[in-house]
């Protein structure tokens, strides 16, 4: 009996992956493609050689930072959809430091990191202020701010920070060498961002598990009114959560500028903010699961452009894979609960 139950539980947790596989295969067949070829292309696109694996790690950095930031806001019951904009704000602040402050080499990178975090935090605070004092749902506030941040980048790139030989969507002129994060060997990965990302996840894990602030945020997330009655300053704590999440997202944006693109480009946030949202949903707000899911998503993210290059398939299949997994995961979780309740009723 026990074994059977455990097996069925196992089947239920594998179900989202199986269903996703089936669903995407059907779509691929519909598009006239060989599903196995497609999936193997994604895998080989991510693992072909050590440089590709390094690319996966490069994609993991912003995802880890954004997801860990979002764990903070989610704990407080806030749906911070503005992570994209906060990344952009971080990148803008970083670029401002690089362009406007003539700093010696040793100072430059640490300052860009701080500026990025500050920029992101400010942008996060804006969404927070709209939520706490303007009663604008953070989904709409954040989304609007994302678009405004994008417009701001475009304005800077096509206006004051225009490259010497004419503005294009490819961004500003590259940063001077002292604002480039050092890379590992001939890969595109860079060590300091990786360390920062790992630290961020670790800190958020400990923060939510063992600190009073983390507990307070959870209290606000569970029941804001009761938390307020208990004497917790909910507005201040929510703002702080927005700022903290913004700072981590801003750091992600800053690192995209100094370690990936080496300049400010439009949409520097690269959709990582939205992707991180899916990751956090899949993690059930548990920090310990985040790195694994991030790895999985990064593999798809890095591997899927292959579909286009090798199979002439639209690489949005990667997004379909990521989305379907989360959708089926949520649905299966619901089914599991329904089954459990029904059993309890029969047994009870």
């Amino acid at each position: 009996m026990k074994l059977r139950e455990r097996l069925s539980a196992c089947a239920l947790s594998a179900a989202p992956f199986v269903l996703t596989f089936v669903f995407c295969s059907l779509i691929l067949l519909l598009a006239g493609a060989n599903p196995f070829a497609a999936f193997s292309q994604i895998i080989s696109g991510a693992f072909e050689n050590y440089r590709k694996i390094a690319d996966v790690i490069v994609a993991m950095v912003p995802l880890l930072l954004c997801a860990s930031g979002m764990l903070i806001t989610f704990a407080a019951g806030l749906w911070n959809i503005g992570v994209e904009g906060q990344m952009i704000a971080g990148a803008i602040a970083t670029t401002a430091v690089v362009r406007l402050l003539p700093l010696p080499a040793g100072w430059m990178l640490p300052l860009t990191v701080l500026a990025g975090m500050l920029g992101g935090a400010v942008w996060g605070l804006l969404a927070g202020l709209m939520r706490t004092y303007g009663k604008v749902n953070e989904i709409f506030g954040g989304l609007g701010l994302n678009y405004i941040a994008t417009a701001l980048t475009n304005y800077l790139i096509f206006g004051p920070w225009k490259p010497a030989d004419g503005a294009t969507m490819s961004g500003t002129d590259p940063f001077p060498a002292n604002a480039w994060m050092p890379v590992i060997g001939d890969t595109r990965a860079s060590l300091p961002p990786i360390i920062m990302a790992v630290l961020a996840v670790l800190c958020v894990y400990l923060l939510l598990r063992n600190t009073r602030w983390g507990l307070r945020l959870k209290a606000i997330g569970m029941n804001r009114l009761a938390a307020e009655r208990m004497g917790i300053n909910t507005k201040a704590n929510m703002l702080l959560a927005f700022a903290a999440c913004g700072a981590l997202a801003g750091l992600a944006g800053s690192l995209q500028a100094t370690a990936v693109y080496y300049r400010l480009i439009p949409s520097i946030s690269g959709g990582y903010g939205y992707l991180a949202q899916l990751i956090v949903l899949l993690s059930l707000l548990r920090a310990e699961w985040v790195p694994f899911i991030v790895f999985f998503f990064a593999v798809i993210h890095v591997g899927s452009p292959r579909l286009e290059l090798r199979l002439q398939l639209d690489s949005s299949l990667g997004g379909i894979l990521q989305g379907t997994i989360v959708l089926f995961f949520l649905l299966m979780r619901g089914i599991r609960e329904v089954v459990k309740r029904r059993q309890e009723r029969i047994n009870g």
Partner: protein
Amino acid sequence: MHIELQNIHKSFGTVHANAGISLEIREGTIQGLLGENGAGKTTLAKILSGYQRMDSGNILIDHKPVSFGSPAEAIRAGIGMLHQDALDIPALDVLDNFMLGSDTSLFLSPRQAKLKLLDLCQRFGFALDPNTSVNKLTVGERQQLEIVRLLALGVRVMILDEPTTGISSPQKVLLFRTLHRLASEGISIIFVSHKLDEIEQLCSEVTVLRQGTVAGSVQSPFSTSELVMLMFGQQFSVSPRPGITLGEPLLELDDAAVSSYRLNVAHMNLSVRAGEVIGLAGLEGSGQQMLMRACAGITPLAHGKISIHNHDLTNRPYQEFLQLGVSFVPAARLEEGLLPGMTLKEHFALLNGSEFVINWRQAEEIAQRQISEYNVVGTPDTLVQSLSGGNQQRALLAMLRPELRLLILEHPTRGLDIGSSRWIWEHLLKRREQGTAILFTSTDLDELVEYSDRIVVFSSGIMSAPVDARQVSSESLGYMIGGKST
């Protein structure tokens, strides 16, 4: 209509709410259903009205078996129910509420419905304006609306669950008159209550429930002691009021006013001394909640002054009130008091200590200690929403700081059985002996009279001068609440 219930069973998880209840209701009678909280009265009423499904048992109407899958089917069979908290839609107006579900045609016919509504209102002496929004009505008026609505649907059996909670004495008189009249017209009434005097006043027969079973059925006239015996299986003696010496003045309200867009309460003057218990009487929404929230520092004053322990706290933040030893225990425990989804341990960790990193072992110890001291049925890892109402209230009290100057409680015993209520009050009275002043509201007039030193009555936003609780009876209090002086 003649109704017979046979061997009704209903369980919620491990709780056996109805454990084989059989009952008979004759046409045109007022049948009482008496029992303390948790005895299974409401569950039975909901089963009979189709709101909940029974696990097993039979319902016979005029000796024919029926089964209801939904309230719609029950209403079609002629059975309607007035829920304790009137199940209407506050955002809609009276007429919409009246029409909702009563008409089968596609388009509404408001003119006809309005005539019908006004006609019914006139018959029973109700004064309902069809075009006001329901959230502007008093509890009594909402009840009246439900009664006429059910009558318009052609209901022959009407179940009323604790209908006198929160209504004024005149409204109660009107309600009882209406019920008598309905019974005389052949409508069967099932009157669910835990209040002995109402049952005695109204019913021709009463069935007493205890722990999900029928403890006994009694015909009118009733003997109070017999009913109490059936209800609790034991007799209670009224504990004598302990003599208490009042301390120095603690809370001073000086011509305070609070306003919301619904109600303005002005000219509140009150001086409370340490160790004093003040009861706040009044219908829901008459202003007593606003006074409490102002004293707790939740709502700012629009005018006037408030000081606690000689500190002027007028329009100071809530945190300062907390620091000065003011605590507020709301009635909506899971909405405003506790954090559903968190364990007891996490609650205690949240409220005790200030260091950044939490010492979980210490939190566990505190939780364990408080749980056993307050007789909470649960462990430090129990999620608060899985506690019963009484245990949630105990947990809330256990979370209060040991030294408090002013304790403000909204309906401290609402929804609790007599045993739990007595335990809560024993604990509260212990606190007053240590010099804590207590401010509380209740809809139970007896509770107000029994435990208060002084009582303040609110009526439509006007606050009376405090009266000595020893000089009022629950009857006279009822009339004061209704806006009449005795």
